[in-house]
């Protein structure tokens, strides 16, 4: 078990992805997911700046200035990749052709509202593709620590930060557990790494129901 909660969240989120699925990974924790996908995962990565078929990070000697991901980091492209313009890329996202978006968030509410782009009172000058992704992707997985750096719960009854989209989250993975939004209901479906329901309740202000499916050894 990794001592880094972010790596543990990424590892668990990676298990949500199925062979053949087209997946867009946001900045932060989602960007750690490729480390936990085996070479035969069959997962196909999409980056909204115009590439389907993102490969591993390049070696330093192999950097291509024309080949970056949406975090503006160097990447490679796998055989069978395709490049396209930004309108085509977002047509994929907005038209429901990207199977999964995995992204970080500031808050997720009991009904799946996501706030991940703006903090009131701070600069609200970057939204990027966040709104497009959470609205367009067929399945939205939020990866985030259970509490903020100041210890505030992030799975909340109602978002206090500006929304990215209403009712958009399908799965929330924290270092403690997995929540699923099913029929508008927030369900705790899995405890991670020895966490208890009480542990989750202590850092969650959203009401949720406990419907544990199985236990994973972390």
């Amino acid at each position: 078990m990794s001592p880094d909660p972010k790596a543990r969240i990424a590892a668990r989120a990676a298990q949500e992805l199925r062979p053949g699925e087209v997946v867009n990974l946001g900045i932060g924790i989602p960007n750690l997911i490729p480390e936990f996908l085996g070479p035969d995962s069959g997962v196909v990565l999409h980056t909204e700046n115009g590439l389907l078929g993102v490969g591993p990070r390049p070696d330093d000697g192999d950097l291509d200035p024309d080949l970056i991901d949406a975090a503006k980091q160097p990447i490679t492209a796998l055989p069978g990749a395709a490049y396209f313009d930004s309108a085509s890329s977002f047509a994929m996202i907005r038209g429901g052709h990207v199977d999964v978006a995995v992204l970080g968030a500031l808050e997720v509410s009991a009904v799946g509202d996501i706030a991940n782009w703006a903090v009131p009172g701070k600069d609200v000058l970057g939204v990027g593709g966040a709104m497009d992704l959470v609205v367009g992707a067929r399945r939205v997985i939020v990866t985030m620590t259970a509490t903020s750096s100041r210890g505030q719960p992030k799975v909340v009854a109602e978002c206090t930060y500006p929304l990215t989209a209403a009712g958009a989250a399908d799965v929330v993975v924290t270092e403690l557990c997995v929540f699923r939004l099913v029929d508008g209901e927030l369900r705790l479906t899995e405890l991670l790494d020895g966490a208890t329901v009480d542990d989750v309740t202590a850092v969650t202000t959203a009401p949720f129901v406990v419907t544990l499916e199985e236990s994973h050894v972390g």
Partner: protein
Amino acid sequence: MTATLTTAAEAVSAIRSGDTVMVGGFGLVGAPLSLIDALVDHSDATDLTIVSNNIGEPGRGLGKLLRQGRIRRGISSYFTSNPEAVAAVNAGEIEATLVPQGTFAEAIRAGGAGIGGFFTPVGAGTQLAEGKEERVIDGVRHVLEGPIHADVALVYAARADTLGNLWYRRTARNFNPLMATAASLTIAEAGEILDVGELEPESVVTPHLYVDHLVAAA
């Protein structure tokens, strides 16, 4: 997802009576003739709504399906290229929805791109805009057009790779790349099926996430 390789007969078995089916091609150029033949010979789905620029030619392409009486409605810009389609409309055997060709193309793109509707000046003040919402934008009359979706799209590409990436040759491209994006299930017929990596990533027109089934042209 990535595409599965199959036969034309197997692929078209996904088409159900009452479905809306998009069929690529401008006249017979770029039309998925093997898939159409399979639909004619190996499927008994009927009561179909066909979205295609033309309804084939007499006894050729979609003209065969028309003769079988399996088309309930056509959405096209030019029925006139098949006099039998015109006769069927006039006899009340099929319902015709005539759309300006640019609006037809744009509406299919919108269907694939998650656009809820768009305003265009084309058709405003004409018989083809009757009953449609109008709005003056910057002093110009516009018509509101909705997206066109389908249950299944049948498209033709000169080349595919085994993932389902598609490349089109010359004017056989036409509506095919648009239709590939706008259906719940997309079946592509390819003249040549190449190994992964043989298509230049910049030259892929339809990335494989749009293609569900891939069939070799007969």
